[in-house]
């Protein structure tokens, strides 16, 4: 069941627009943005790019030197009009880098700390969704890192926010735990009908979660577009992971192969992808991520190969980036779907690849990540 804000008076379909300037020592933050009213917006950039500063301003924990901040038709901040709604009246939930649970309250006390009467009926539902029912009587000091994060997420959700901010909620978690919580948050953000702003410096987290992406560098916004569009831009390859540049595709589970533990994913009417078996029910939607370096090309479908996925595609764009002169970045189109591929320049020349040419994209099933 989707979770939406408990009070209908504040519309959840209100977009956030901001324009702020703040100087902190040598660092200057200067950002103007309008973010979509729904879904997950990723704010992405290396450490020190101003992501967290921006988040703190949105939450009301910092006040910029100059700026305006508006959520729907509510003005939260206008330095010119000397207007500044304090953090506790903004109804903006924050999940911080550290869980920041209150050590003198039990888990239940932490969860209900910011819970207004109107959200009380959702307590059981959110506790179940987060799988923290067995932790309610525990003291925060006894929780593992992953458990504490989930409690922190629950606490923020139960405060009935009209916007949820997440500041690198996975930082400091190790491999498997991080993967587990990442999948969980990805699922959660699709279920929760509250707009989410998710800050991270990890391309994988952003790819798994974001619908819209804001790219920050040295205190400035260098791009703000739907994730799919940005991932296809060759000029942003370095910023978006470089070697790990990847494509994101959404698909629907259509079939499970129980013998070989594989799952068939329908990308659209005529394209399917075989990925490692997952337990999601038939019909459920999920997002997969394929690294550009994991897609090989052939000039025609081939039989003598281990590649499970062979997709007919057209080369839409190709370019050699100055940062890696040995390779060629390609954008393949499969109808409405786009995939990025990276080959050595030598292969590309020998195959006489060119824009408009029909090729077969080869994708190893085992290389596909799903969320």
């Amino acid at each position, binding site marked *: 069941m989707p979770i939406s804000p408990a009070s209908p008076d504040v519309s959840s379909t209100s977009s956030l627009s901001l324009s702020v300037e703040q100087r902190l020592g040598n660092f200057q933050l200067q950002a103007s943005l309008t973010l979509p009213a729904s879904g997950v917006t990723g704010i992405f950039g290396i450490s020190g790019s101003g992501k967290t500063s921006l988040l703190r301003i949105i939450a009301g924990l910092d006040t910029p030197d100059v700026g305006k901040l508006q959520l729907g038709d509510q003005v939260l901040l206008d330095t010119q009009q000397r207007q500044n709604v304090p953090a506790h009246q903004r109804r903006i939930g924050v999940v911080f880098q550290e869980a920041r649970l209150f050590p003198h309250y039990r888990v239940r*006390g932490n969860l209900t700390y910011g819970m207004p009467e109107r959200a009380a009926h959702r307590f059981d539902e959110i506790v179940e969704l987060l799988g923290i029912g067995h932790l309610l009587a525990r003291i925060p000091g006894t929780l593992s890192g992953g458990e504490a994060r989930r409690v922190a997420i629950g606490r923020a959700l139960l405060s009935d926010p009209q916007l949820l901010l997440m500041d690198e909620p996975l930082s400091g978690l190790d491999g498997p735990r991080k993967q587990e919580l990442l999948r969980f948050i990805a699922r959660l953000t699709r279920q929760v009908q509250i707009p989410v702003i998710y800050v991270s410096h990890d391309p994988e987290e952003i790819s798994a979660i974001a619908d819209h992406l804001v790219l920050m560098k040295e205190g400035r916004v260098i791009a703000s577009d739907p994730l799919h569009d940005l991932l296809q831009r060759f000029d942003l390859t370095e910023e978006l992971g470089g070697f790990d540049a990847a494509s994101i595709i959404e698909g629907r589970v259509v079939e499970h192969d129980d013998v070989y533990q594989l799952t068939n994913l329908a990308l659209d009417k005529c394209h399917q992808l075989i990925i490692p078996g997952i337990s999601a029910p038939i019909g459920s939607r999920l997002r997969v991520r394929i690294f550009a370096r994991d897609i090989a090309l052939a000039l025609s479908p081939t039989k003598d190969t281990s590649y499970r996925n062979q997709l007919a595609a057209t080369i839409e764009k190709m370019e050699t980036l100055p940062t890696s002169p040995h390779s060629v970045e390609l954008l393949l189109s499969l109808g409405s779907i786009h995939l990025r591929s990276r080959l050595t320049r030598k292969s590309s020349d020998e195959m006489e690849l060119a824009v408009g040419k029909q090729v077969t994209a080869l994708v190893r099933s085992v290389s596909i990540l799903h969320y």
Partner: protein
Amino acid sequence: MTLSPAEWEAIRLSLLIGLAAVAWILPPGIAVAWWLARYHFRGKAFVNGLIHLPLVLPPVVVGYLLLIGLGRQGVFGQWLYSNLGVSLPFTWQGAAVASGVMAFPLLVRALRLSIEAVDPKLEAAASTLGASRWRVFTTITLPLAIPGLLTGTVLAFARALSEFGATITFASNIPGETRTLPLALYTLIQTPGQEAAAARLCFLAIIIALLSLIASEWLARRTQQRLQERDAY
């Protein structure tokens, strides 16, 4: 050993004045400690110095200053008397004011250190959960600073019990009104042939001090436990 009426009187007055002193300095003490711990402002060092002055000044000077300020002819004293009919010098309330002023820096110091140790990130988290500044203070800052609050209160109470110089200067040494244990002891020492009675009072003072230390230790441990077992609301 049975206590004489005069000894009972001294103990009763000491406890009364000590408790009254702590009671009146707690609210401003908490406010000032929080202000000093959480805010940076111009002249903070000066304010800090002013608050700590009673620790380093001769208590007689503090008593004299109180007399000037709060005496019947004093700046505030005159106002208090003509508007509220309150006269502080030579009363047990005056003694509570004097020992409170002397104990104030000890309370503020302990509490301020404890509040500074509370992670401001927790306070920020509480405010994003919709808690007003007052609620953040009462549900997060103060509960987490309870150890410092207890230490400060006990220190202040002990200081108020043992206060002598400011009290005798401002409130005088009136039997049954302002003659607390230290003042009674002083009176006995001044009287020839009362050495045994002085020794008894001295012994009593030690007992009271020990009891209050043990009580505070017990209270601190209990609060720590309660704090960890507490739920919201």
